[in-house]
């Protein structure tokens, strides 16, 4: 197994309080991995660490040679200004940044790629719509189309299927499975355990501390899930310094 992302005694957090505590292990190259755990378990924090938006309090994240631009990241709540007057086509085309850079022209070939990406998420015909006119599910489809064009080796999805209907979730899951077939590494935070069991071979159960990590069937046991639920969510202002 070749690793794509390796965590070495990783602690991430805010103001010295750990949100992910002493995580060790590696995500294999080409893995399709779900990160599950209660709200506040550190899933989003872990992802921010992976994409470099948050520096570790201790330990290391080794991206095994990947650069920032090789990683595509879908945050839980994208800080996207939906009121900005930009068309679906233009927003999705930004996924081609690696090809076009600051000044590159978006020519006929690139235009074809944008149309194919929109078709893949079921949004053919939406090219000229302003993003402000889209529904929540359509917006999520647009963001997936942009992820498709980013052509990234590592794709990090923070709760991609939350608050969207089952049809949209199914369509977007098909895109995720396509990435897996193309041997890209996909890491996704999810809450729907049935969906995880059905489609995600590898699972990390996180509750600030890593509770279990491995094959879905071994990780998602009643015993492990109970342990994860009992995690203490609140930061302790009077906590002593961690000795480990």
């Amino acid at each position, binding site marked *: 197994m070749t690793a794509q992302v390796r965590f070495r005694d990783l602690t991430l957090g805010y103001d010295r309080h750990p949100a992910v505590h002493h995580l060790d292990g590696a995500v294999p190259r080409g893995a399709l991995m779900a990160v599950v755990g209660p709200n506040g378990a550190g899933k989003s924090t872990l992802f921010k660490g992976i994409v470099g938006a948050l520096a570790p309090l201790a330990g290391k994240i080794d991206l095994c040679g990947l650069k920032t*631009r090789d990683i595509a990241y879908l945050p839980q709540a994208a800080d996207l200004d939906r009121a900005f007057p930009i068309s679906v086509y233009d*927003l999705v085309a930004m996924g081609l940044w690696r090809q076009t850079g600051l000044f590159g022209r978006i020519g006929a070939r690139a235009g074809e790629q944008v149309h194919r990406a929109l078709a893949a998420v079921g949004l053919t015909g939406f090219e000229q719509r302003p*993003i402000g006119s889209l529904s929540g599910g359509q917006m999520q489809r647009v963001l997936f189309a942009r992820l498709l064009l980013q052509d990234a080796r590592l794709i990090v999805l923070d709760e991609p299927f939350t608050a969207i209907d089952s049809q949209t979730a199914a369509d977007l899951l098909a895109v995720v499975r396509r990435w897996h077939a193309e041997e890209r590494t996909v890491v996704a935070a999810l809450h729907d355990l049935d969906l995880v069991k059905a489609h995600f071979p590898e699972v990390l159960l996180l509750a600030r501390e890593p509770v279990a990590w491995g094959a879905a069937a071994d990780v998602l046991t009643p015993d492990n899930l109970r342990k994860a639920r009992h995690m203490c969510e609140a930061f302790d202002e009077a906590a002593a310094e961690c000795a480990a």
Partner: protein
Amino acid sequence: MLYSTLIAPFTEFEFMRRALAGILALALGAGPVGVFLMLRRMSLMGDAMSHAILPGAAAGFLLAGLNLFALTAGGLIAGLAVAALAGLVARTTELKEDAALAAFFLVSLALGVTIVSLRGSNIDLLHFLFGSVLALDDRTLVLIAAISSLSLIVLALIWRPLVLECVDPGFLRSVSRAGAPAHMAFLALVVLNLVGAFHALGTLLAVGLMMLPAAVARFWARDVSAMIAIAIATGIASGIVGLLLSFHAGLPAGPAVILTAGALYVGSVVFGRVGGLARRLAPRRHLEA
């Protein structure tokens, strides 16, 4: 009749031609900058920055009198310094950028008026606050034209990161490091255009040719390029109509230009195709799908 009303003032009087040329150049540069300020929800920041250049220009006046170079350099330095300081305070303390700017520009305005009064007369003060669009000399015109040319070139260069930084700054950070430099370059353009407009319209009205056309454009277009075209057209129309009004009715020229832009704004609020009041109050029948 039509000729003598609309054309003759410009063909017969050089100061009218100069004023027109100055306003046309300002509209070309300030229009697009204003559209981006509005889209980034920084409209009031333009206003704050226009006040912030006053003490710099006033210090230049104190040192060298009404000298184009001294006023421009002073204004630029003060404007850029306030932009940088406000950004610094916002990033290092709990104060948000708008509050930090408000603090700096109020102090700047008071300081500027004080400095001008130290040496100059009330006429000088009026020149600083409201400009003298009917007395633009060659060098000032060249300066204003240079500023708008530079603005258009720089905007073309930073267009993509600037748009993306408005829509989805998180995504821009993940693909490129161009966000921060583009933001800085844009702020520099804001200051430059305000300093250019300051010579023609004074600190209090300089921001008018920047924000009013942008606000008008928002009511007529749904995409950025069209907004910019409309903003420039609005600025130019305000310039022509405002100067003619001032000529025939004996109004002060700078305020007449801004008032014309204001009238276009009110018209757009009422009749605008995109979210105007008339459309709200008398909506057309809904469509089938």
